[in-house]
């Protein structure tokens, strides 16, 4: 696939790894913000290849992982309503709420459907006028333009049986929260390439300046990530702290203006709770009051739910990079991909799931030919 496959070239990958290892005079600590980037790093074994040169802390850039428990519980409530067809991206189906998850609701008879695009959900509403279609509008700034368009079109076309359950979050406040933490170890960031495709990179300039951290806007293929890491390491080695763009084929400084414009018309900034982290002011997007008719919380009168997360789940500390997944007491015991306590074990690029799979190999090899731990089997 053009503009994709060539960024997996083994020779270029090895070359970049070599350069990074040669040029790093000490072990730098970087954070990749986006779950998709974590996925590539783990899938391609990039952190294994980088060895001692760079430590990658997996950031909270997984909207699945940070969707607050309350929103999941609201989703489950809606999905159990017999008049509702609840539509969602596939990522959300196994995220545990307080009692169960969307897949379990479906097993009990709830109408839950996976869609590829919010417009598919709108189309479903148009074709099923006797049901109410709710779409779970989750994501970072990348997905906001798509979700905004679904709402905009619903109003334009006059679709009465469509609404969205919103749980959008924005990246810069999360980065700031991480940098503000007293025990922060992150020295540089790989910013999320598709968030920045939409938003541009202007809002990262004050962060780089204030906290003196390099921020490299980075793509998602192995070559992109390594190039991003290389640029970050070069900045750190020379004492610079700028915003740089690695993902030049997609990102411009102003982003995609028409997309930002529609998002601003449909959504506004709200305070948002991040699962496992807590509330970060003005870090989320909510529907503007004039679109209340398309807001599922308004249409269905969903009260503010206050929900406590399981005490054993240390997702917050993992998402902030404070602990590694295997340092959580529940890791691999109470909490496994089959029975996750929190979202980072559910999502395939949640840090905990990534470590669970990848790390087992390391430990098994280190111990010699040993059969896997019983709890890890199907």
């Amino acid at each position: 696939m053009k503009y994709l496959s060539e960024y997996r070239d083994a020779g270029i990958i090895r070359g970049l790894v070599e350069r990074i290892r040669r040029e790093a005079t000490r072990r730098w600590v970087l954070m990749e913000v986006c779950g998709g980037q974590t996925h590539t790093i783990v899938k391609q074994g990039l952190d294994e290849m980088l060895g001692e040169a760079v430590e990658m802390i997996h950031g909270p850039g997984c909207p699945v992982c940070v969707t607050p428990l309350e929103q999941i519980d609201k989703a489950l409530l809606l999905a159990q309503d017999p008049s509702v067809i609840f539509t969602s991206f596939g990522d959300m189906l196994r995220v545990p709420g307080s009692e169960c998850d969307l897949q379990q609701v479906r097993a009990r008879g709830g109408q839950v459907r996976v869609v590829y695009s919010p417009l598919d959900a709108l189309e479903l509403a148009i074709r099923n006028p006797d049901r109410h279609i709710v779409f779970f509008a989750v994501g970072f700034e990348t997905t906001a333009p798509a979700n905004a368009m679904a709402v905009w079109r619903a109003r334009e076309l006059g679709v009465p049986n469509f609404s969205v359950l919103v749980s959008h979050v924005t990246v810069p406040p999360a980065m700031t929260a991480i940098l503000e933490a007293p025990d922060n170890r992150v020295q540089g960031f790989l910013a999320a390439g598709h968030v920045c495709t939409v938003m541009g990179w202007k809002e990262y300039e004050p962060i780089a300046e204030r906290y003196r951290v390099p921020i490299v806007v980075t793509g998602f293929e192995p070559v992109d990530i390594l190039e991003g890491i290389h640029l970050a390491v070069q900045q750190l080695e020379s004492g610079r702290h700028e915003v740089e763009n690695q993902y030049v084929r997609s990102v411009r400084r102003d982003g995609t203006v028409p997309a930002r414009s529609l998002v601003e018309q449909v959504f506004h900034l709200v305070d948002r709770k991040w699962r496992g982290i807590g509330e970060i002011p003005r870090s989320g997007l909510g529907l503007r009051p004039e679109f209340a008719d398309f807001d599922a919380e308004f249409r269905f009168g969903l009260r503010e739910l206050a929900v406590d997360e399981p005490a054993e789940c240390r997702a917050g500390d993992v998402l902030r990079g404070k602990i590694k997944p295997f340092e959580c007491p529940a890791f691999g015991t109470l909490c496994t991909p089959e029975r996750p306590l929190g979202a980072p074990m559910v999502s395939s690029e949640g840090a905990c799931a990534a470590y669970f799979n990848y790390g087992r190999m390391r430990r098994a090899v280190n111990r010699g030919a040993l059969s896997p731990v019983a709890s890890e089997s199907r």
Partner: protein
Amino acid sequence: MCLGIPGRVVARRDDRGLPMGVVDFGGVRRECCLAYVADEVAEGDFVIVHVGFAISKVDEAEARRTYEVLRELSQLDELDWMREVAEQGLGAIGPGSAPAGGGA
């Protein structure tokens, strides 16, 4: 955020006022919304698509330029690496055992 892949615009059409198009991803075609890139994009251009929406036009010139730089660097690195390997008398070692040039 995450899953956005590049594809080529092969057709454009209007859906009740909304600019839509057929995008080809390496042999798979899907209808995508082109509203956010409508003014910049023509048939034959590449776009990055996320959940059925084109969120940017691929800057092919920039992509080519930066990729060439990378490729050259990696070829230099490969030669360096091979020399190191030879000097240390290690023979064919390391991940995948070195092929002669860049892989893929």
